[in-house]
């Protein structure tokens, strides 16, 4: 105790360092979820960020002349997203629904429901780092959002909800998430594989069949197979940019460019 009294500053430094290390370890063990106090703080911050974010986007879009073009653009984007979902859904149901029904009967699984409800949300804050793509949206548990809910936009798969508060939710992008996503190739739904973030801002994965005829330019969609986070079937993930056969692992590995431009997110939809 005498030593502590004699070295107050040093004790404070060592104590703070230890407490911070402990916080990191506890946060890691709790899988990144914050405490109820942390959620309250984040809720309060989101309350302040919301109007500033909308002002920011107002500045970015040019508040003087282009409002009507933006409104029209938003409508066209929504229509485009709806049509793309319909196309994917129609293709998938037409080709695979019967097979899936049979499969579900065999394994006694529930049939995948394609009529998911989606809720639109605005991005109110980005993480501000240059490395990750974590952002906050203005919808929360009171709108039905839950942890691991899938987030999309008109371009495709954005990510999943990391944590949800009453009126906010923190979303982590698919390229940052450690979750794996199972995919199918849009032109041939029999080609199935698994992908995840490559640690360099893109996606990497492999086809389950090492003889699969996957080629550069193929568009990948979510397969609907649950790998920890339930991605509904038919969401656009990205385009294959490179295919390679790894002799050591005997796997056909691929590199994927995500469909979504993560640095320009404004509106997203959360699938419930």
């Amino acid at each position, binding site marked *: 105790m005498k030593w502590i009294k004699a070295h107050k500053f040093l004790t404070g*430094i060592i104590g*703070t*360092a230890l407490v*911070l*290390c402990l*916080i*990191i370890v506890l*946060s*890691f063990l709790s899988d*990144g979820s*914050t405490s109820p106090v*942390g959620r309250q*703080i*984040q809720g309060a*911050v989101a309350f*302040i*960020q919301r109007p*500033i*974010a909308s002002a*920011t986007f107002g*500045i*970015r879009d040019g508040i003087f002349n282009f409002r009507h073009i933006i409104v029209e653009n938003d409508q066209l984007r929504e229509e485009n997203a709806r049509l793309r979902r319909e196309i994917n859904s129609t293709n998938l149901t037409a080709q695979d629904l019967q097979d899936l029904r049979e499969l579900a009967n065999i394994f006694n699984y529930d049939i995948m429901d394609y009529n998911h409800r989606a809720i639109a949300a605005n991005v*109110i*804050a*980005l*993480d*501000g*780092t*240059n*490395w*990750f793509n*974590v952002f*906050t949206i203005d919808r929360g548990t009171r709108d039905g959002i839950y942890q691991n809910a899938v987030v999309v936009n008109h371009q495709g798969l954005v990510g999943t909800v*990391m944590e949800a508060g009453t009126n906010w939710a*923190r979303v*982590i992008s698919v390229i*940052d998430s*450690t979750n794996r996503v199972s995919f199918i190739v849009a032109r041939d739904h029999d080609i199935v594989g698994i992908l*995840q*973030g*490559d*640690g*360099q*801002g893109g996606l990497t994965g492999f086809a389950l069949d090492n003889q699969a005829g996957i080629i550069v330019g193929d568009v990948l969609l979510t397969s609907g197979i649950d790998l920890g986070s339930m991605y509904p079937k038919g969401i656009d993930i990205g385009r294959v940019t490179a295919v390679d056969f790894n002799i050591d692992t005997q796997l056909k590995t691929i590199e994927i460019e995500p469909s979504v431009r993560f*640095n320009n997110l404004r509106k997203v939809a959360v699938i419930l």
Partner: protein
Amino acid sequence: MKYRYAACLFFVAFIIQTTLMNIVSVFGTTPNLLLCLVVIFSFLYDENNYGLVLGVSFGLLYDICFSQYVGIAALAFFVISLAIMLVNVIMNKEVVFSVIVVTASSTVVYTLIYWGIMFMLGSNYSFFHMMRFLPLSVLYNTVIVIVLYYLMINKVIRHHKDRYYK
């Protein structure tokens, strides 16, 4: 500067960092305003521990709101602030080159600490991916710290010709 003013400055920087800064992103890189404030306050107000206390507090706030794991930014700010306070004894506050060196080093250290801890916690982010933003980040942060330096230096270092010099 009083603690409450410094805290307000940190809070405003935190809000701007997460909202308005996205407008001024160049090649996907934005300046780290909180790091800039930690650097300038640790450099100029080392006796008051502004950088240390506010850096840890707002680092935690930032982590709660955005990081995958809480505490990483807070620990990085803590280490950087402490390091600046230690090297301050050999630095001349009145020379702008000192603050440039300190800011550049702090940005590198911040990136290394962030990557190191994320790597230990199992992140698959590659070292080179994190480092490729570094040159522009260093440039961006240095420019902001130099601006802050010239705004604040006259209040910290009194010249004997100043009217209210005592």
